[in-house]
């Protein structure tokens, strides 16, 4: 698959700043305090490896403006991020990857833990990530919940620490709660349960995502909702649980339930926008993309809860010197609010909520984070109309959505067996 391409982080468009790192540094010191123009003489470039969903030319441009650091995006798929870290750990300076991959990444020894003392806002990181709770209330913990893999015993350790330490595996960037996307205009009735994905009413109009480690979790939510399988831990199934889960999927597939499967963001948008499917696994920005086309699409909250994921910055083992300093500076800037606000406006959640709030208009914060009706029209990242004034975000507030998390994306002990069974499902 040829979906790798290196994107220069949107700098070239900003002719104002072109070739003038001094201006960039100067702007930095005046616009935001606390970011001295240390790179004014010699701009440092960080190769930022992640999926397309985590990258935005606007963030790279702003980072350049404030910190003087060039961000060079390296864009690959979810699975390829993991593959790169394992097989080419020197091909990037900073990686934004999912917490669930850590169970494979940390034992490989290709990471150095992040020194918590160098991260200014480390105490402000969202508790949903650091402790698995919101306002002191526990949220769903099944699967690879980030707080289980957040700390290492030592900087170059291969063991996760049970307690908080000063060595952090990944500093969170974005996280969210995923659910089913539906076309309310074509379904014309309320959808309340994950079990609707396999409801024969939507025969030939359903889809599930074909990334095994994530698809299996959606399948588990469906099986549990249907009452077919009772799981000990959906995020770490036994062989028997995997067998039963896949059996349900195979039965549905043979009955013609699925229109297609998708494995990348754009496919899911196409399926939904063209009306080929009316109910399917979906990611938040894909729902946004469908809506920006003027087509009704709902990221439907369901009574069984959400499947959550979280992504964060990790540092490769070999990073050192000026580049290492620059990586810390970039991470600190990232948590400082501007980037967080930018992500919040796309429907993701920022790692540090306080600073993101300071960078957002009160009406934006109220709509995206508090679940209140929009006071004004809400615009998408591209400036297009996303929501008319008066609408309410699907699923409501941050606390309601993240509070209803049922499980997290995960890598299971029986991962190899799961992949084998998943292939059986695809071949069925």
């Amino acid at each position, binding site marked *: *698959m040829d979906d790798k391409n290196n994107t220069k982080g949107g700098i070239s468009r900003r002719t104002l700043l072109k070739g003038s790192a001094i201006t960039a540094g100067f702007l930095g010191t005046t616009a935001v305090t606390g970011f001295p123009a240390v790179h004014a003489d010699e701009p440092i470039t960080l190769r930022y490896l992640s999926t397309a969903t985590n990258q935005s030319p606007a963030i790279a441009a702003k980072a350049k403006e404030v910190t003087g650091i060039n961000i060079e995006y390296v864009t690959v798929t979810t*699975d*390829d991020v*993991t*593959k790169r870290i*394992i097989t080419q750990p020197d091909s990037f300076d900073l990686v934004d990857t999912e917490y669930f991959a850590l*169970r*494979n*990444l940390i*034992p*490989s020894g290709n990471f150095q833990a992040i020194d918590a003392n160098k991260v200014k806002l480390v105490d402000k990181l969202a508790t949903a990530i650091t402790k698995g709770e919101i306002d002191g209330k526990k949220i769903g913990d099944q699967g690879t919940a980030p707080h289980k893999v957040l700390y290492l015993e030592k900087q170059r350790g291969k063991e996760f620490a049970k307690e908080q330490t000063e060595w952090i595996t990944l500093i969170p960037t974005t996280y969210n709660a995923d659910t089913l996307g539906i076309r309310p205009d074509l379904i014309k009735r309320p959808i309340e349960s994950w079990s609707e994905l396999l409801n024969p009413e939507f025969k*030939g109009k359903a*889809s599930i995502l*074909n*990334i*095994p*480690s994530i698809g299996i979790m959606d399948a588990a939510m469906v099986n549990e909702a249907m009452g077919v399988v009772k799981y000990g831990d959906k995020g770490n199934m036994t062989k028997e649980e995997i067998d039963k889960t896949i059996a349900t999927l195979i039965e549905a*597939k043979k009955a013609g339930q*699925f*229109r*297609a*499967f*998708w*494995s990348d963001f754009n*496919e899911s948008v*196409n399926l939904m926008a*063209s*009306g*080929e499917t009316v109910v399917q696994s979906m990611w938040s920005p894909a729902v946004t993309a469908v809506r920006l086309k003027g087509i009704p699409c709902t990221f439907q909250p369901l009574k069984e809860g959400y499947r959550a994921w979280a992504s964060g910055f990790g540092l490769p083992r070999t990073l050192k010197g000026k580049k290492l300093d620059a990586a810390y500076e970039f991470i600190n800037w990232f948590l400082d609010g501007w980037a967080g606000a930018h992500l919040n406006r796309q429907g993701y959640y920022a790692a540090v909520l306080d600073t993101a709030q300071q960078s957002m208009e009160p009406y934006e914060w109220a709509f995206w984070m508090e679940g209140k009706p929009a006071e004004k029209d809400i615009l998408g990242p591209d400036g297009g109309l996303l929501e008319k004034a008066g609408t309410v975000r699907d699923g409501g507030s941050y606390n309601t959505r993240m509070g209803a998390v049922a499980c997290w994306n995960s*890598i299971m002990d029986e*991962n*190899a067996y799961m*992949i*084998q069974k*998943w*292939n*059986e499902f*695809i*071949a*069925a």
Partner: protein
Amino acid sequence: MLEMKSRWAPYWQAAPLAIVFLIFFVLPLLVTVAVSFWTYTGYSIEPAFVGDNYATAFDKCFSSLPELCTTFRTYLSTLKFCLMVWLITLVLGFTIAYFLVFEVKSNNARLILALITTIPFWTSNVIRMISWIPLLGRNGLVNQSLMSAGIIAEPIDWLLYSDFSVVLALVHLNTVFMIVPILNSMSRIDKSLVEAAYDTGASGWQTLWNVIIPLSKTGIAIGSIFVITVVMGDFISIGIMGGQQIASAGKVIEAQINALQFPIAAANAVVLLVIVLMIIWTLLRFVDIRKEL
């Protein structure tokens, strides 16, 4: 001295290509074969010599017969597509090549028409695949025209994400691989042979069967090798056009690579290679390409 030079000259001339082949083809292939016997964890692969990966690839395949296991079913499905696409591209490719060689009289027209057959390659694979949706989809052009013409009342679902659409896309892509080699063989047929057949009273079909087809055999064999190897290894077209619901050997390998199970993916790659080589070997039993070239 001069004699020495000329004796070695062909080897020197062939050396650059041989080296490229060695580094970028033979070496990776050997590594693949070696890795297929290694063991692995979620994050590492360890040198070893075990048959586990092959055992997993054929898990329950022999014990569960006559019920087909995943691997057998996947290969059967891939072989089915291979056969269908091969037959269709052969008929299409042969007909088009025949038309270009024997019916088109002007050399320029022949050249232009031959170039037109490459149109499917003018855009990227991904864009081409996505473009099928507005054409064949549930609300696509074909369904809309059929419905507005009153021929059907409900949209036809099997136009997209079905065996039909997979075969359509593969034929669309691969016909040109059949046309070019057949065109090449056919254009070297001495026209006087055809005239001789005609003069001795052979019918059109007899000429085709006894003169043109035997003389185009090399082109047919080469075209077939192209089409069969491409279709056997394809997983992008089958994936996208089959709505990812149709298994292919390549997709299985991709899923395993993505799960970092390199050794088992390597084992499957070796199995696929062996199967394709067997098909090609069978083909070459019928046509000696070197003799005919």
